[in-house]
């Protein structure tokens, strides 16, 4: 940190967990954006559909983020846009403008894409744009192209389904009703492929069940074949709405087997999976034991160093903290703005048993100055990019949305990441500013 332009009188906003309330420990107010960018946005997710193209309709200010995301991914050939002017929403020409702009963009393409994601903005929804009519007209003009209604509507984030669950739901809209294959299941709404060493893969392959993942699809046809799977598995809460929608629309059974660090919950997940597929539950005691041992090894490597966890690294930071504490890892700080219902039990447990844990927000205005005011740089070992940034530490597990962390294998991986993080510093500034973990970047 080099300079400071104001904020000399900042009072930090953290509280001891004993004083923190569920689900919002902090008041809302003006918001800060920490420079940790590993999270995925709607562009990254939309690009998971092979050979698809995205077109955004919004004000210039809103366009800028999605266009730059795409430019950094060196994927500008997969994104087009049209911007709104003052007069557009006053003239009542929004629908016509969308249709005309899409038509012009398609004309300028060498080859029609099989799928076009059309993103409308807060302004369109607020103006009551007839999105269905727009899509119907486009379908009539451009047969053979699947048009998908998508939304970039952050102002409406508390009005119904939130933006990312909506995006995951729309991501599978082109899938059509087809005959089901009971020996095929999908992972839905996960941004990366499960690791090869994950026991979920072993369970399925041992039973002769194929696992389809959007991230493994090379062609649009291959993506459409995901409709053949009899079961959809979701592992993150944001994907649950997509699973429910597919169950209703295509009759694919949805089972939610959330990422967890709790051995019993992991076992429960696998029992649910095996029960649903009618396959035997394997003996996972060895995997469970080796995961527990890995955590012990990590605790040894950390040798009491304080650990910080953020909500972006894992969906349930309090559950993770509880498991780490129970295994001798010294979790001191948790960075979270809103505590999810799934994490309430662990939060209450920690409140009762570890009342001195410090809880900090990430968007509160005062957090702008938190990192700069850390007395002891590199004191903490962090799990997650925001925790690394705020704690000013180069010793961190670079983890976003539990990438690659599932089941007992996931615990082992996380333990290995922690062990490595304790010993090997990272280029914090560079690593955490890479947008969309795992995505290509020109930076």
């Amino acid at each position: 940190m080099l300079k400071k332009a104001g904020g000399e009188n900042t009072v930090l906003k953290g509280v001891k967990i004993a004083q923190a309330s569920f689900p919002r420990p902090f008041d809302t107010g003006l918001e800060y954006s920490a420079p940790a960018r590993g999270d995925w946005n709607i562009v990254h997710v939309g690009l998971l559909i092979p050979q698809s193209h995205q077109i955004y309709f919004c004000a210039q200010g809103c366009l800028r983020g999605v266009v730059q995301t795409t430019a950094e991914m060196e994927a500008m050939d997969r994104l087009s846009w049209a911007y709104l002017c003052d007069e557009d929403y006053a003239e009542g020409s929004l629908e016509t403008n969308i249709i005309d702009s899409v038509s012009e963009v398609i004309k300028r393409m060498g080859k029609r894409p099989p799928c076009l994601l059309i993103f409308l903005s807060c302004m369109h929804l607020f103006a009551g744009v007839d999105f269905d009519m727009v899509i119907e007209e486009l379908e009539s003009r451009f047969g053979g192209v699947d048009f998908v209604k998508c939304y970039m509507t952050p102002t409406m984030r508390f009005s119904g389904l939130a933006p990312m669950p909506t995006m995951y739901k729309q991501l599978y809209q082109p899938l059509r009703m087809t005959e089901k294959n009971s020996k095929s299941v999908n992972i839905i709404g996960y941004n990366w492929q499960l690791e090869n060493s994950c026991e979920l893969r072993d369970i399925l392959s041992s039973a002769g069940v194929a696992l389809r993942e959007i991230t493994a699809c090379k062609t649009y046809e291959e993506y459409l074949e995901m409709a053949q799977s009899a079961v959809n598995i979701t592992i993150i809460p944001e994907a649950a709405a997509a699973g429910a929608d597919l169950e209703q629309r295509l009759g694919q059974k949805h089972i939610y087997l959330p990422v967890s660090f709790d051995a019993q919950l992991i076992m429960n997940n696998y029992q649910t999976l095996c029960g649903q597929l009618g396959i035997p539950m394997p003996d996972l005691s060895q995997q469970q034991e080796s995961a527990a041992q890995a955590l012990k090894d990590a605790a040894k490597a950390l040798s009491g160093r304080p650990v910080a966890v953020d909500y972006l690294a894992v969906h349930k930071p309090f559950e993770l903290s509880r498991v780490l504490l129970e295994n001798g890892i010294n979790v001191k700080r948790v960075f979270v703005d809103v505590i999810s219902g799934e994490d309430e039990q662990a939060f209450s447990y920690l409140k009762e048993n570890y009342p001195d844990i410090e809880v900090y927000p990430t968007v509160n205005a005062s957090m702008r100055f938190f990192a700069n005011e850390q007395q002891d740089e590199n004191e903490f070992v962090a799990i997650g990019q925001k925790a690394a940034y705020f704690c000013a530490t180069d010793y961190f597990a670079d983890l976003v949305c539990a990438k690659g962390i599932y089941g007992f294998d996931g615990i082992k991986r996380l333990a290995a990441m922690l062990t490595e993080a304790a010993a090997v510093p990272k280029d914090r500034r560079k690593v955490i500013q890479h947008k969309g973990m795992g995505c290509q970047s020109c930076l």
Partner: protein
Amino acid sequence: MIHYARIISCYSADTSGVCSALYELGGLTVVHDASGCNSTYATHDEPRWYDMDSMIYVSGLTEIDAVMGNDEKFIDDVCKCAQQLSPKFITICGSPMPAMTGTDFDALASIIEQRSGIRTHAMHTNGMKSYLCGASQAFEMLARCYCGSKGTKSAKPRVNIIGATPLDLSRQEIVESVFRWLEENGFERGCCMAMGSRFEELESAGDAACSLVVSASGLEAAKVLEERFSVPYVVGIPLGKEFAALLAQDVRRAAAQKKSIISCVERNCGQAENTVAVVGESVYSGSLAKAYSLQTGKPVRVIHTLDTCAELVAACDKKIADEDKLELEFEHCSQVIADPLFKPIVHLGTDFLPLAHEAFSGRCFRKTIPDLVDKTIDLEKRS
């Protein structure tokens, strides 16, 4: 009227322009927009975000507050934050949704000022205009409200730099090069609006002998300084050796004669053979066109892709913002100097010289942006 692009990028918006212009001055800047909308500015438009703490925030507007006209929450949040952080001033900016609901930012600023006791300014942004519009409003506000004259005399004529933001100049190092060039030409360093200067330095901006306008966003502020303190201005960036020398003469002339000069527009326009085009913001592109023309002897014109005013446009220049029209125009060019993200619409037979512009390509090519101040231009050597 539709404005679309198949493959090229878009420019930063007005709200980013305001934030960028005011970033280093110790004010509280609040964009009235949804949660998360500040990450675009912080990630792509603001290279100082990681290294320099500044009070730039978003209000976290929700649909229900927009629909119900709950301005009280915005006022309350801004006042609470101001109380906590003690900013030197407060600036509030509109975004698309408040524009649709007709939020009265002048009234909000007045109420916030009354309650917080801190001078508060409303920027008339809506997220639908370019960064130049936002930055221009911010600089003009600084010139009107915070620039002053202490009556201090300097041994050498003092020169301000007006209109400097990373969106156009990328790095402080480039601003320092401009100041170094000024000093080498017998001038004294004035204030810079607004990279590398403290808020307090604005108080003596009116004592300068001249202002150097380095982007279109600085023009209105320079005019205000001229109107308030009789400080003339010169428009141009000292790019290339030859243009830098001419610009220094213009600054001397302007200071001596108290007459403003738009140096970057006085260019060799040539006739039909003028097929070399610089694309982008008017002042940087105009300066580069003039510098390149002086260096190579070729006439060079500018394709202005952003909002500009007539006085910054030379007779041979064109104003084109839409991708399809730009692509057609490029067909008539033998050489195009532009941000790399324009390349996909430049024909294969055309010589393309990439020159990244932060306001267009964000941080994608930041590392490649050259400091051409008072240096021989060697764009051909870069790829």
